[in-house]
């Protein structure tokens, strides 16, 4: 079956895509919805301009759909992009990186149900530390692209997800109930390399901005 991945450039959607390919499915396209609103309900894409480079590294075409509306308009734009993927790439299903968010998952389920295509959430209910450990084991190179919760600070941005990170985040989970995989929107990530990439993406320069417990990184790739 040909599949399209709802892609943000972060670890979850990339790992979900990897699991689909590993299970024998054909990755036909990536679908990214870019919200111009900073507090988008559905889409967390801090470095949306870079998803094209990730698609190129995978050798997979990408559909980028812009959205700037309210909640319902965002969903309409997502549906539009999925329809386009069905028509252009003949996909029979969508893959998402949803782990815990019933809000996101149920809306994507509803869209797929209306369009009569399969919906796959291979990370659904996954134990979050296990997810991080699998990323490391499978040689994913992932950096933290933004942090949005107490007690994070500027120092976390740009860090790579390695075993040391898993240790630290597990402690924050115990102390502050931070979701280890950032599923509650506590942090966002960007994938620089993984088994789906034909070549690694390298950061040329980065700019970190923000305040308090909320910091973001803008990166330029080589």
């Amino acid at each position: 079956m040909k599949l399209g991945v709802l892609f943000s450039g972060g670890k979850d959607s990339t790992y979900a895509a990897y699991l689909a390919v590993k299970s024998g499915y054909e990755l036909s396209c990536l679908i990214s919805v870019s919200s111009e609103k900073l507090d988008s309900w559905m889409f967390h894409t801090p470095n949306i301009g870079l998803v094209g480079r990730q698609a190129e590294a995978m050798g997979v075409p990408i559909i980028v759909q812009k959205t700037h509306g309210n909640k319902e308009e965002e969903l309409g734009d997502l549906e539009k992009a999925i329809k386009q993927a069905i028509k252009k790439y003949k996909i029979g299903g969508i893959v998402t990186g949803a782990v815990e968010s019933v809000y996101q998952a149920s809306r994507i389920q509803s869209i797929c149900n209306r369009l009569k295509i399969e919906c796959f959430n291979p990370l659904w209910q996954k134990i979050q530390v296990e997810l991080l450990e699998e990323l490391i084991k499978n040689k994913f190179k992932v950096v933290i692209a933004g942090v949005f919760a107490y007690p994070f600070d500027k120092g976390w941005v740009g860090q790579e997800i390695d075993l040391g990170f898993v240790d630290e985040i597990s402690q924050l989970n115990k102390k502050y109930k931070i979701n280890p995989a950032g599923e509650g929107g506590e942090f966002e990530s960007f994938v620089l390399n993984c088994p789906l990439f034909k070549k690694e993406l390298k950061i040329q320069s980065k700019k970190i901005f923000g305040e308090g417990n909320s910091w973001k990184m803008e990166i330029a790739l080589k």
Partner: protein
Amino acid sequence: MEDGDSFKMILIVNVCREKLHYLEFVKPITDIFEENNKPYFVKDYKKITKKDLQRADKAVICGTSLMDDEFINNLPKFAWVKFFDKPILGICAGMQVIGLMFGSKLRKKTEIGFFKEEFKRVFLGMERKQEVYHLHNFYVSLPRGFEKFTKSEVPQAIKHTEKEIYGVLFHPEVRQKDLINVFVK
């Protein structure tokens, strides 16, 4: 072994047509058993043998995706459900299987997302109003010999009046994991 419970072997029945759906509908259940050190084994619904049924002390029939109706066209593969003399829990598609094996009719109703359900009596540890996750296009009418535990018109939680056969239309592996723990206790 100190704990008598740990001798109980749980058969987990995978009804998914698509390989990738295993991670979404079966693995969240095996994770619960891993966490609680409950011995289990997983079998594809088309490959269940007499030996599997003898080996199992309890069975959980998992759900599948909204588009997957393959199991509905393979109901004879579930004939064992009527004669298995040990506890069974059917989740979503699994409940539909139980209903259909006991003479229910399949009816259309799409419900996706969180819904509040009110329990009339305690059902595998659940009582009063609870938020549950729905993901279904169909449900089954109340089968003969079963009791409905929710106030809703659509039977959301049912149990055989004499046997330990349970069915839930919602997905307890999402935010209601205790229901599964109570079943395997």
